[in-house]
């Protein structure tokens, strides 16, 4: 249980891993669990932080960035995975690197049943779309998992999903 008592700032670790991997474009759909990661990216002058109107835009942004010699990463909530399935297909067909950090609803103490269908099936949808999956269950693992996933994505030309447990991000409270 000691691993859950990480005193560091996992969000900063994730940002630093992205920065250290040369990621300069962050497409994100607003999300509470990943709020601090998003804010670190917004505050980084080397990064363009781009609020997406829909998750499907993320893989397209990543593809365009790669065509131009840049690296993009996407932050989305598991609830929106279904919106991106069609554009995930382009990642597989063209072998574009596509690093996706997923705020994984229903992974730990979920309070809203509407978030569970996509949350529970999300990793399977990623796999069906040809993506690899990694999981972060403890804050101490967050930075190195993202760094490893980034290396894998940009070196192998694959889609990679990194699922962040609510155990790490905190559980959204409902009345």
């Amino acid at each position, binding site marked *: 249980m000691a691993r859950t008592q990480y005193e560091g700032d996992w969000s900063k670790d994730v940002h630093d891993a992205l920065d250290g991997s040369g990621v300069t474009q962050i497409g994100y759909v607003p999300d509470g669990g990943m709020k601090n990661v998003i804010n670190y990216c917004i505050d980084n002058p080397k990064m363009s932080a781009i609020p997406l109107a829909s998750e499907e835009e993320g893989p397209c942004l990543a*593809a365009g960035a790669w065509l131009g010699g840049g690296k993009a990463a996407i932050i989305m909530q598991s609830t929106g995975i279904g919106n991106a399935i069609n554009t995930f297909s382009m990642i597989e*067909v063209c072998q574009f690197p596509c690093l996706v950090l997923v705020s994984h609803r229903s992974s730990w103490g979920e309070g809203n049943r509407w978030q569970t269908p996509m949350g529970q099936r999300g990793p399977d949808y990623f796999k069906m779309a040809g993506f690899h999956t990694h999981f972060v269950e403890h804050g101490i693992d967050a930075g190195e998992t993202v760094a490893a996933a980034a290396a894998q994505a940009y070196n192998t030309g694959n889609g990679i999903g990194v699922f962040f447990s609510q155990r790490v991000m905190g559980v959204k409270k409902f009345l």
Partner: protein
Amino acid sequence: MYLETDGRLARREIVKRILKDRDDQPVITGLSIASYDSVAARDAEHPLNFNMHGALGGAPMLGLGLAIARPDKRALVLMGDFDAVMGMRAMATIGTQMPTNLAIAVFDNAICSETGGQTSPTAGQTGIDLAGVARAAKWPVARTVVTEDEVEQAVDDLYGAEGPVFINFKVSGINPGSMKKTRDGALMKLRFRKALLGEA
């Protein structure tokens, strides 16, 4: 010069004009006729054509990613009207970034030629005004081109105006035909990067 036999704008002739003497211009196209137009204007092997054959609606966001990655280049996107309708949300996303080097040209024939000629949401008096959507997203240049006389200025703006630029060419429904080309996305990606970056 840019007219079809029905008296309306000829999309392929306009694309040929846009890409004339622009061999170093990176081009993203959406699906269907827009991709064939780019092949007709250059050729099937041109490395700086990236033609999408799936992920309908995605071309504007590829353009945004490219524009941000390469601020020293113009990012030019060519696409059809239904592709643009499906990608309308991206106009809002692009509007949050205001990339000055992104230009999108839509060829709006008001029909979905590739899939059986169904009427597009842009058709007729009640059809959606795509340039109006871009204006609502506060793009600094966003207008519709209907006549031959407007083509040259539109081409100038696609390359020279401070973007993002959105030009909707209202074109003839006559299909200028498909062209032989590759649909291998990995091949197109590799040769695009090789030509633009010197590495695959």
